[in-house]
Structure formats: structure tokens, C-alpha cells
């Protein structure tokens, strides 16, 4: 579903991604962990070309989105993205946030967009907050609206960039619940996160990245119980605190 071939990204002299190969199969949930500055967010942002890869190919459902003759706006609606800082539009209600792309990109009439938007909000448990503005919502609710905004477009794959890092601890659960439901419904997901518990429980595969490379990859049990590389062990010791 999502395939990266030798993806490189440089910022000036700094090489953030040193040739990444990755295959995320349909309905698979792949988790990326690693220290900050390891390139995991950059990798995620290359998957919808918020960052332009310096080299390599990114295929979404067989289409190379890096190719110059691809309609990137058309491709992006198949690739949902959820951001660490939610990035809800503050001047629009929750429903307005969810329906903007439905109306502008899918050219849906207002009624139809609202119907689908309400269904998407219902899916994240926020049907009754459709008319609330972002600043009237808690962080967890805002992030769920952001998820609904992406899901309403019925994407083929969802990218999560540290979706719970900006949340108070007691609000993390509500967002993870939504992600768990998405996983059960068969969404293909690529997740950058520090929620190790969630990775252990929900991920099909875990990738450990460091210094722009995938150091190792495997099932959650393998990565967490018996990491092969010293760098992985070191990282896991630091984040789990023992």
C-alpha cells in the first residue's frame, strides 16, 4: 500500500534520511520509534511530500507520488495525516474543519459534506461537538477532530506524527482508543510515536530509526524483548527507564 524505495532527504549538508526502504502492507500498522532527530518525522512527511525527498521513490497504492507528473493534491487526499500539534483551523467549527476538504477537494455539496462530516465526527466519538470551535475543545478532542478530518476523505493510508505528544497524559487514552478502532476496521497506518505500550499491543511491526537510518525492524515482541542492536537497546532503556 505504501512503499518507500531508497528515500533520501538532505537539508543542506545534513542528511536526514540516508536511503530508507519500507513497505507497509494493506491493513498493516507500522510503528516508527527512535530518538528525536533520528529522521522519523521527516520520513513520515516524505510520505505525502510535505517534505520533498532528495532522492528515491514513494509509492502509494502503486503510484509514485514523487514523480513530477503526478497530481499531488489528488494523491494527498488518499493519504491522511495527523499532526503532533493538531493544526485544526481555529476559524472553523469542528464540522467546518472536517468538511472543508470534502467540499473543496471532493467538490461535495454542502449537505452531503455535512452528512459525511458528522459521520466522521461520530466515528471519533464527537458527534455532539460538531459545532464547537477548536479552542472550546480539549486537546484530546481536538486531536480526534483532526483524525476525523483526515478520515472523512476515506484515505488509503494514515500517517500519524507523534499524535499524542502534545496531550496531557489523561487525554492520551481517548486518542489511542480511536487509533485502535481504526486499526480494527482495517486502516493502513504508519505511526511515529513514543507510546511504547500502544506499539507493543497494536503494531504489526516496529521500526527503530537512528541518524537517518532504519537500524532494525521486527515484530513488537522481537524489538522490545530482544533487540539485536546496541543502539536499540540503549534507546529502549532510556525511554522505558530501566
Amino acid at each position, binding site marked *: 500500500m505504501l512503499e518507500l524505495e531508497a528515500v533520501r532527504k538532505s537539508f543542506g549538508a545534513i542528511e536526514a534520511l540516508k536511503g530508507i526502504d519500507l513497505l507497509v502492507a494493506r491493513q498493516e500498522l507500522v510503528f516508527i520509534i527512535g530518538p528525536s532527530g533520528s529522521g522519523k518525522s521527516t520520513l513520515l512527511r516524505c510520505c*505525502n511530500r*510535505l517534505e520533498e525527498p532528495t532522492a528515491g521513490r514513494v509509492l502509494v497504492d502503486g503510484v509514485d507520488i514523487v514523480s513530477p507528473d503526478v497530481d499531488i*493534491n*489528488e*494523491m*494527498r*487526499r488518499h*493519504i*491522511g*495525516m495527523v*499532526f503532533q*500539534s493538531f*493544526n*485544526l*483551523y*481555529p*476559524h472553523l467549527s469542528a464540522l467546518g474543519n472536517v468538511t*472543508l*476538504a470534502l467540499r*473543496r*477537494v471532493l467538490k461535495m455539496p454542502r449537505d452531503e459534506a455535512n452528512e459525511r462530516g458528522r459521520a466522521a465526527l461520530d466515528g471519533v466519538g464527537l458527534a455532539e461537538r460538531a459545532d464547537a*470551535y477548536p*479552542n*472550546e475543545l480539549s486537546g484530546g478532542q481536538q486531536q480526534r477532530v*483532526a483524525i476525523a*478530518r*483526515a478520515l472523512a*476523505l476515506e484515505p488509503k493510508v494514515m500517517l500519524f506524527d507523534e499524535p499524542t505528544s502534545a496531550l496531557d497524559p489523561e487525554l492520551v487514552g481517548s486518542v489511542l482508543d480511536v487509533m485502535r478502532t481504526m486499526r480494527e476496521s482495517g486502516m493502513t497506518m504508519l505511526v511515529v510515536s513514543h507510546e511504547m505500550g500502544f506499539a507493543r499491543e497494536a503494531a504489526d511491526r516496529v521500526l527503530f530509526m537512528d541518524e537517518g537510518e532504519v537500524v532494525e525492524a521486527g515484530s513488537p515482541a522481537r524489538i522490545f524483548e530482544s533487540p539485536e542492536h546496541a543502539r536499540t537497546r540503549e534507546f529502549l532503556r532510556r525511554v522505558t527507564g530501566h
Partner: protein
Amino acid sequence: MNRIAENFFDLEVMAKYLPSILDGVLVTIQLAILIVLSGLALGFVLAVVRAFQIRAVNWLIVLVVDAFRALPPIVIMIVFYFALPFVGISMSGFVVAWLSLTLVLASFAEEIFWTGILSVDRGQWEAARSTGLGFLQTLRDVVLPQAVRLTIPPLTNRTIVITKSTAIASVVAVPEILTQASAAQAFSANTTPLMMAAVAYLVIFLPLVVLSRWVESRFGWKR
């Protein structure tokens, strides 16, 4: 006390020159409305053009905008009115006043709108683009509505400052309030008409100041 009454509130003078001051009021209002409309519209368009980040175009915008922000409006008007005819461009005083202040307001407005566009978080662009919205759609539906809200307080202030400098148009013989009042003062050898002009400016611009307060609170963020 009597001296003050005679010189500033002479009823006979007031009655005599009220019609011409009112004519001036009409001209000032027309001029002000035209300047606000065209100045804000042009400033907005320039800021949007600048958002496309075409280097040569942006250099040009910055150059022109900085020049019009640096030049005193009175100098611009005098140049347009007295110097341009020598190169074959002749405009009436009204057109010169309108054009000069439009360019000045547009220049300030462009900078204010541009600052507003820049202050919208990058994440807003990214979120919108990630859902498939194009550059223009993002600008129109996501960035500009936020940018315009941020710009309303500085914009209303600047608009008031520039529209009230329509008084400068008296140097290019536009029959606005101050021109009419100065003429009346000369004819009557009495300063009452200047008092009337001051009152007329208050009557026109005080509501504008009040309106701007209302606009500022109306478009503030719901907190």
C-alpha cells in the same frame, strides 16, 4: 471670553459659511470612502500576490511599498499635481488626492496583510495541503481568514490615520472641508470656520473610530 466667542463661535459667520463647509464635508466623505475601498483592496491584492513568492515581483512590491510608506503624503500629492503635468500626465486635484492616499494606504495595508499571512502557523498550511487542498484554496479558505482577523486592529488604525489626512488635499485645491474652511476664514477675517471644520472632522471620523472598535471586538477570537 467674548473674544473667544467672537473668534470661534460667531453665529453670523457660521450661518453664512455652513453651506460651503457642508459641501466640503461631502467631498471629504467621498474622498475618504474611495481611498478606503481602493487602498485596502489594492493592499490586499498586493499581499496575496506576494504570497506567491515570485522573487522579482516581490522585490518590486517591497520597493514600491517602502517608497510610499517613507514619503510624506503631502509630498506625493504635490509631485503628482505639480510635477506630473510636465511629463504629460494631468490629473484633477481630486484624482491626485485619491490616487496619492490610495497608494499610501495600500502600501501600509499590504505590509499589514503580509505580516498577517506570515503569522499564520505553518502547520495550518501543512494540514490543509495534506488534505489535498491546493495553494490557492489553502490561502483563501484557511490562511487569509485567519490573517485578516489578526490584521484588523493595526489596519483600522492605519485606515483612520490615512483617511483623515484627506485634509492635506487642500494643497492641491480639492474643495474638501479644510479648503472650504480656510477660504471662509480668509473671506470673513474670522476663525469660526476653522472651528466648524474641526467639528466636521469629529463628526465624520469619530464614528469611524468607534466603528473600528466594534470591528476589532467583533472579529477577535472567541476565547
